[in-house]
Each structure stands twice: as structure tokens, then as C-alpha cells.
């Protein structure tokens, strides 16, 4: 597969409202995840690891933190003369409406047209998975498919509304796509769609003229007869950011060795912006068990079952459990935290006690001082 054969497109604001408290000032794509990443690192790395050198990021709003994160694309090796990383914010002129993926794609019609790539891979930023996109594209070509949907198996409770539920033949041809609930184990699309460029352009034009809104719900889900749609199974860890609770669960899943080995597959590393922190320092009184930790932390307290992002400080006597502390969070002396999600730069004062529950985590906002 030639590098230029595939262009990736990532929808950065996909399902922003499902993580409301974490997306007041940022897009879904730039929500911090897993001690040193932002959610977009996963689809971006998936594409880059498949040899894709041209990626457009479709944004709608709140994209400043995303721009700051991706920069020129250097950390994903996407600062290229040919291709590379494009941030595609909505144009003020011309865009009459912005309701869903159809309008978003229509807004970047020229980018797709001029991409010179035969195939387009569409990715949503709200799904966490390390996916072999190269293998999926090869299957797409071999099946001579019009559209290929990467899917996983699981219970419907894990996925957001309007996720495509697939019925498949033995050869993985999709025979039916439902958007409504079904019992038991289902096959659901994980937000990665492979489609020929010319077909995508045709679909966009028609759907835009017909004032349709969602590529998935209004076009693909209704097009099983019209298009040759295949599924490609991703038989490894997948998590949807289907609410704060599932965001917490997905972070905590990284404490499991098998999840780590799948999400951080050694053959397909996950890239992110470097921060040049020093290594994490464990002090004389540090008691750290079952934690995933980024660089630049200074830990002098007790930390158990947590995900600590880069630059977190936990002072002496503090006890932090079952929590997610984002970049530069400070936990003061003797503070007690349980089931807390602290956004960037939060500061929890000496002796404070913050307790959430398994289902209802206590959220500390960005820059908030408690």
C-alpha cells in the first residue's frame, strides 16, 4: 500500500456532549486519557502506524486545546512536505449549516477531493482502541467492498446511541444495520469507516442535497442493499467514551495487564506530544500500588488504583484511591481522595477529603482550587 493511497479523517468533536464536564473547554479529541495521552492520539497513531501520511482533523468548536496538542504533527511524524496533518475548522463563509457528519464532510469536500488518495478512512475521536488499520484496508481492497466498517463484539450498554449494530454473513458481508437496541452480544461499529474517495464524494453530494444529517444513520445504515458493505472484526480492547463513568472505567482498565498490552501494542505504539518532564520521583514515604503513572510526577503519599497524568504532585500523608488526576494536579498534605477525577491544574488543599462513588465520581474542574 503506497503511503498516499489512504487519507485519514478524524472527527474531533464527535459526541462531545457525552463527556460534558471534561469538554467545556475542549473537544472530545483533546480529552486527556491514560496518564500521558489525549484521546486523539489513538486514532492518529492508528493511522500513522498503518503508514498513512495524510490526516485531516475535522473540528467544530473548542479546538484551541486540540491545536495546541497536535501542533504541526511532528510527534506523529506528520510534519510532511507531502500531505501531513491538516486541521479543518468549519469555514465561516459558505457553510450554511452544521448539523452532523454530512455537513462536516461537505465542508471539507475540497480537502477530500484534492487528497489524491484512493481510500478515505474516517475515525471518530470518542473510541479508544489500538486498531490495525492497515489490515482493515487490505481486507477492504480484497473484498472489493464499497464501504468497510471496523466492528467489535460486546454488549449494547457499552456503546453510545446511534452506534451502528451490524448483522453479518459468514464472509463478514453486512446484511443489516440497526440503530436500535438488541439483547445480548452484538456487533457494533467502532467508528472506523473505510470508503473509496470517489464514492464518498458522491455520497456527500447527494446526502447534502437531500439535507441528510448523519453519514452513519442516514446513509450507511440505510444503504446495505445499495452498497457492498463489509465488516472487519477488531477482536481486542475497545472503549467508548459514553459518559464520565465509562471514561473512568476505561482509564481504570489500563491497570489490567492484558488491556495495557492491547492498547499499548508494541508493534503499534501510541504517540503523543512530548513534554520533557523529568522521570517520576517516588519519595521516601511513597506507597504506590496498582497505578499507571506518567512522567514528571512527585509522589510522597499513598496512591492506590489510580491513573496519574504527567506532573502530578501527591504530598506526604495524602491518600488517593480509585482516581484519575490529570496533568499538574496537586494533592496537598493529608488530603484524602476516593473516586475523584481532577481535571488539569487542579489543586486539592491540605487535609481536604473528596469522595465520589464507583458510579458517580467527584469531578474537580480544570484549574479549580479546592
Amino acid at each position: 500500500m503506497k503511503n498516499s493511497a489512504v487519507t485519514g479523517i478524524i472527527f474531533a468533536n464527535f459526541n462531545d456532549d457525552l463527556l460534558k464536564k471534561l469538554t467545556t473547554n475542549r473537544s472530545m479529541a483533546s480529552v486527556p486519557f491514560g496518564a500521558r495521552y489525549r484521546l486523539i492520539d489513538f486514532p492518529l497513531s492508528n493511522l500513522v502506524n498503518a503508514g498513512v501520511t495524510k490526516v485531516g482533523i475535522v473540528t467544530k468548536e473548542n479546538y484551541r486545546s486540540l491545536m495546541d496538542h497536535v501542533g504541526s504533527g511532528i510527534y506523529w511524524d506528520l510534519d510532511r512536505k507531502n500531505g501531513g496533518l491538516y486541521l479543518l475548522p468549519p469555514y465561516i463563509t459558505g457553510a450554511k449549516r452544521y448539523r452532523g457528519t454530512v455537513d462536516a464532510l461537505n465542508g471539507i469536500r475540497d480537502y477530500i477531493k484534492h487528497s489524491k488518495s484512493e481510500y478515505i478512512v474516517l475515525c471518530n475521536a470518542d473510541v479508544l482502541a489500538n486498531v490495525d488499520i492497515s489490515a482493515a484496508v487490505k481486507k477492504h481492497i480484497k473484498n472489493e467492498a464499497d464501504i468497510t466498517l471496523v466492528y467489535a463484539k460486546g454488549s449494547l450498554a457499552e456503546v453510545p446511541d446511534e452506534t451502528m449494530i451490524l448483522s453479518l454473513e459468514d464472509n463478514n458481508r453486512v446484511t443489516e444495520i440497526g440503530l436500535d437496541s438488541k439483547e445480548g452480544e452484538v456487533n457494533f461499529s467502532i467508528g472506523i469507516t473505510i470508503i473509496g474517495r470517489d464514492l464518498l464524494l458522491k455520497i456527500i453530494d447527494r446526502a447534502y442535497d437531500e439535507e441528510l444529517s448523519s453519514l452513519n444513520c442516514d446513509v450507511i445504515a440505510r444503504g446495505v442493499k445499495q452498497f457492498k458493505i463489509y465488516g472487519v472484526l477488531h477482536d481486542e480492547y475497545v472503549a467508548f467514551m459514553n459518559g464520565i463513568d465509562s471514561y473512568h472505567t476505561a482509564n481504570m482498565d489500563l491497570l489490567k495487564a492484558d488491556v495495557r498490552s492491547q492498547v499499548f501494542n508494541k508493534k503499534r505504539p501510541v504517540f503523543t506530544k512530548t513534554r520533557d518532564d523529568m522521570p517520576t520521583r517516588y519519595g521516601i514515604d511513597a506507597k504506590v500500588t496498582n497505578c499507571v503513572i506518567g512522567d514528571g510526577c512527585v509522589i510522597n503519599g499513598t496512591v492506590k488504583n489510580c491513573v496519574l497524568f504527567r506532573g502530578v504532585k501527591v504530598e506526604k500523608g495524602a491518600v488517593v484511591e480509585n482516581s484519575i488526576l490529570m496533568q499538574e494536579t496537586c494533592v496537598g498534605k493529608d488530603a484524602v481522595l476516593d473516586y475523584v477525577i481532577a481535571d488539569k491544574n487542579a489543586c486539592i488543599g491540605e487535609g481536604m477529603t473528596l469522595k465520589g462513588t464507583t458510579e458517580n465520581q467527584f469531578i474537580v474542574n480544570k484549574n479549580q482550587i479546592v
Partner: protein
Amino acid sequence: MKNKKCVAMLLAGGQGSRLGVLTSKIAKPAVPYGGKYRIIDFPLSNCTNSGIDTVGVLTQYKPLELNDYIGSGKPWDLDSSNGGVHILPPYQGLSGEGWYKGTANAIYQNLEFIERYNPEYVLILSGDHIYKMDYSKMIEEHEASGAACTIAVLEVSMEEATRFGIMNTDENDVIYEFEEKPANPKSNLASMGIYVFNWDKLKKYLTEDEKKENSSNDFGKDVIPAMLSNNELMRVYRFNDYWKDVGTVNSLWDANLDLLNPKLDLNLADKKWRIYSRNVGFPPQYVSENAVVENSLVTDGCEIYGKLDFSILFENVTVEEGAEVEYSLIMPGAVIKKGAKVRYSIIAENVIVEEGADIGGDPAFVGSDDWGITVVGDNLTVGKNAQIQANKMITEDVKEGEKI
């Protein structure tokens, strides 16, 4: 080329033979330090933080790893289209160019490189030391004093002074004499191997030095004395912060373990003076349910299931269940398997320490004459239940059960 005020020349060609197996495949400046750095990150980051954007890196001994590490210079923000970092290996020419014969000759052979930028000043650095220094202050002082050359010095104890190049100065910090490793030192101002020269003076003296048949072409031995005997104004620049030579196994180990002292005056977490390094993108570190981690530095890609105390783990190190690591440096990619013990040791890159192996010794139990840091060379395997005493340098695989 746009003229530059100052061009830095970083001498990175040395073997560092006293580091033994640690520099058998890489040049000393490429030796890992502090969990995620290489020694050369310090002078390179100091340049960037001091506003020096043009750096020539002179390589000679085993340059592959170093070239690869420096690459385009991007991690240090030195990938500039006007200036930036340039690797300068020895080369062939019509007039007898060839291997760098000494520090001065290395610069002499690259006078053309400096000429392209026609700077006012040239800063000479080495890739052997761990320190954070604002070179711009030194250059300012040099400029204000009108000296031909300014040499950075550190105050050491009189005993230590016998191991350094010593600058004897008058009350105005003007150098009147230079003594290499004096038996009876007159001063305690040790040269740090950091020089600022006026470009015209440097060119003149290097050209003259090259013509002298008996010259060893060394800054300390030849160029500085020649300038002094010509009555050039030469001054010292006093530096009072953390500075450590990492030329021997013990000093490398020492300088690393210094980082575990929270009161150390080498603050690597200072956001105003970052030490940059090339990061490869490993997942975050994981500390397991049964792990015990105290007084240690740990970085990305590490998985710890065992016990860690007073140690530094570089990227991608695994310490398995029941393994114990104390007072040691475990370099990138090494694996310490179940029940193995590593004490007072440096385990180089990608070493596998098999189950139950026991490496290194505690100075409290080993006689002080026999004690020393044990080093296991890169990519070696230490077999199951093998035992390696203190003060050993391991250069070949160690078999199962072997005692060394």
C-alpha cells in the same frame, strides 16, 4: 548565512575509556543518564536555553548512536534553517585533514564551519558533564571584560585540585598561569572545559598551533599556554552550581543517584530551564499491586512488580515479582526477572537478568578495598541463579549458576 553572535562547538568524539563496557559501542556523550537523558542533553539543552542556536557537534569515536540520537536536533529545538545543530565528523581533504588529533585540532579542522557564520564569539563545550549553565551570562561577562578568552571554573577543594586543570588568577580574576593536575596547587579554580574565545583570536591561535610540530593540539596543554605566554587577556568565569564529571563508573553512578536527593541543586523539573531529550513514546509506567517503590526515579515504559529502592529506572525496564533492585541504575529495555537481586550496579541497555541471579554487593558487607560498582554490559544475559560480586565489569554473557 546570517552572522551569529556566538557559535557553540561541542567536543563529543571522546571514548570515555574509563567507563569500560558502557562505552564499548557508544561515545561517552551518548551514555544514558538520569532515567531519560543522555549526557549530551545537558550541553545541548543549555545551548538552547541560553539562546545559542548554532551548534557544531564534533564526533569521532563510535558516532552511530550519537548521530542517530541527535538527528535533526528537533528535541532540543535546534532544527533551525539558519543555524541549528550540525554533526561534524573528521573528513578527508587535500591538505592532510583526517582524524581529530586533539581538542584544538578538532576545532581547527572545522574553522570553515565557524567561518560560515562569522561569529563574534565561539563557545567550546564538552559532552562529559552534568550541569545546568546559562552560557549567555558567561558570554556577557566575556564581552564586558574585553578578554580574548574566558574559561569557566569551579571552586573545588585543595585535595581535588590535584585532579583538575587549575587556573591561577590575580585579584581581578585574570589568569596568569595554567597548571594541569598540579601536585601543589596554588589555587582551587578548576577548569570546567568550557571556553569562550573571540573568534579572531581563536582562529589565529589554532592556525599557529597547527604549524607547531611538537604540539599535541590540545586546548589545555597547548593553546591556552600559548595565549598566556603572548600576554592575551584571559579571565575566569566563576560557576557555583551543580557540576559533575561522569568520566568513571563510580562518578556516573554517583551523579545519577544525586538525583534522588530532593535538596539537590540540579533541578530537572525546572520549567524555565528544561533539559530536553529524545523521547520514543513508550506507554506510562505501571506499578503493580505488590510492588514497593521508594526513593527512586522511574520513567515511561517501565513495569514494576518487585521492590525498588534508591534506584533509577530508564525507559522500558521490567522488574518482575520478587525481584529487588537497590542503589542501582537499570538502563533502557533491561529485564530483571523473578527473585533476582541487583545492588550497587549499573545494568546497561537490554540486559536480561534471569531468575534468582544476584548481582553486586553492599559496601557495608564488602571490604572497602574490594568494593565498587558492578557493571553489566549492554545486551548481555546473566543466567539463572548466577552470582556476580561487587566491583566487576561484565563483558560477556554469564552462564546459569556461574559465580564471578
